[in-house]
């Protein structure tokens, strides 16, 4: 137990998850929403890891999620794999794909990586749309079975938020390790990282693969929950939304993507028209980049510091009044 207190982010997410799932249980609409939000949180988290920690601006997380979802669909529909086993493949396949690509991607600057992954995501999307015999083409695949005992929306909700807690734990573990520090150095200055003994391409590939596995598992859950997947379910739009949610919440902060996703999702539901979603996301991104470049959660530490400084100065003035001679 003592180990967990050194993982504050995990504790916060655990508390949030329990509270929110309990709340969502009261209304089937909320439950359904909260499952989908959970899927997006996972994908946004994966973007946070690859961009916020490793500096890899990946626009293919949606594609990795789609690969995970289609893997889930094909393995359970066609190969009749038992439930849960397909999670391993759904996470592993995108990870392998990412690892293979990483050799290309990790050589590039963040900007070039964004373009390369955008192109890759589009290629995957087109492939999925056209490989009719495997993926069902435009129509997609329907009738995906559930995951064993997980058969009600509430159970899915609990599952996805449990997955989020596990992912945040792994993320926090990574940050508090030599690899997390090395990734941050890479993001800041690759030459410095090399001089610290870091094998830059290898470490970046590992981080990228990890983020792809996370996105793949989000796709896995999505496919089983909706029991249907099509090329439009998880696509470039998803990647873009995930990136925006991650940056708006604070990509370098562990819980940033989560905050961004929840914040944007809640607000988007109050928009007069669904089509305005893009204008809202785009506008929010631009505002954040100008006003709070480290994201919404990035505003917290300076505010906390100011708060502590005010409290501290009040305390010291009190002490000075009480014991003036001690201030020598």
């Amino acid at each position, binding site marked *: 137990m003592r180990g967990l207190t*050194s993982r504050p982010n995990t504790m916060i997410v655990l508390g949030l998850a329990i509270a929110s799932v309990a709340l969502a249980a009261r209304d089937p609409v909320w439950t359904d929403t909260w499952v989908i939000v959970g899927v997006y949180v996972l994908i946004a988290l994966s973007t946070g890891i690859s961009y916020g920690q490793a500096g890899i601006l990946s626009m293919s997380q949606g594609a990795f999620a789609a690969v995970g979802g289609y893997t889930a669909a094909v393995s359970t529909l066609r190969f009749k794999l038992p439930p849960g086993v397909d999670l391993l493949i759904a996470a592993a396949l995108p990870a392998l794909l990412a690892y293979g690509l990483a050799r290309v991607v990790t050589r590039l600057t963040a900007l070039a990586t964004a373009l390369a992954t955008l192109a890759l995501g589009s290629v995957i999307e087109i492939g999925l749309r056209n490989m009719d015999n495997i993926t069902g083409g435009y129509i997609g695949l329907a009738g995906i079975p559930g995951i064993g005992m997980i058969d009600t929306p509430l159970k899915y909700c609990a599952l996805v938020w449990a997955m989020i807690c596990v992912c945040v734990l792994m993320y926090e573990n990574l940050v508090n*390790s*030599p690899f997390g520090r*090395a990734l941050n150095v890479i993001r800041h*200055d690759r*030459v*410095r990282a*090399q*001089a610290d003994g870091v094998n830059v391409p290898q470490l970046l590939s590992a981080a990228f693969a990890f983020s792809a596995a996370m996105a793949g598992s989000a796709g896995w859950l999505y496919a089983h929950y909706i029991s249907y997947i099509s090329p439009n379910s998880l696509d470039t739009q998803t990647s873009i939304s995930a990136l925006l949610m991650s940056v708006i919440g604070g990509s370098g902060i562990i819980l940033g993507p989560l905050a961004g996703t929840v914040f944007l999702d809640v607000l988007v539901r109050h928009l007069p028209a669904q089509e305005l979603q893009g204008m809202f996301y785009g506008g929010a991104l631009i505002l954040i980049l100008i006003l709070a470049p480290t994201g919404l959660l990035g505003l917290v530490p300076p505010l906390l510091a100011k708060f502590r400084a005010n409290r501290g100065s009040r305390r010291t003035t009190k002490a000075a009044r009480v014991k003036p001679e001690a201030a020598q």
Partner: protein
Amino acid sequence: MTGMLAATGIRMSFGGLTALKSGTIEVAAGTIIGLIGRNGSGKSTLFNCMTGYFRPKVGKITLSGRDITGLQPHRIVEQGIVRTFQTPRLDFDANARAAVLCGFYPARTSTFLGALAGLPGVRREERRLAEKADHIIERIGLGPQRDQPLGTLSMGQVRLVEVARCLAANAKFVLLDEPAAGLTREEQLVLCGQIRELAKQGIGVLLVEHNFFLIHELCERVTVLEEGAVIFVGTPGDVARDPGVLRSYLGAAAEYAGGRVAE
């Protein structure tokens, strides 16, 4: 600890320009060796060849007899050869402790997956590393500044942090690239003290410098480069008196200034 880092006959060209014709230098464990020369003499090129950033086609770099020529920079670091940069490459928003912690990477004991899983070994290691980092920072005299962002420290203190990072990496050889640039005389003396400490611990130090004060204070032997080749090897005192070196630095005024420089 008998170790020797040696470069022999290194030749390096970029396009049509031969920056280094025959670079040769030896650094034994526990010694401080200087490498000087005018701008364009090839010292940076030799330095970068020894640290793996350039791959020479002719010549050899050896570590205790083992050929390490052309190894990738991170592999060179794994061999225990660590370098600093002329313009400090540090995250100026991070604090000194974070900077020093990054130096421990070569000595890591966990794997990437192990770190993700949060194995108990990793957590123990983290605690140990934090203690070691604090210890090193105390030793270089930056204890009070440990939690301040590096951007608020003076250049002298930043250079010390860089040296501390090398200590963290369990270096056997430390290669310093003009560490005195931008330092006041007091800061230079502090730096000298720290460099001497390194040598006392058996670490071999290669010091590339323009600042002859530091060379004179620290180095037991100096190699002088000119136009890509070695023109003199000797003690700092000998170097200051050698006419060839003086001509290289001072041109025709060398003979006139000869006696003065040796002071």
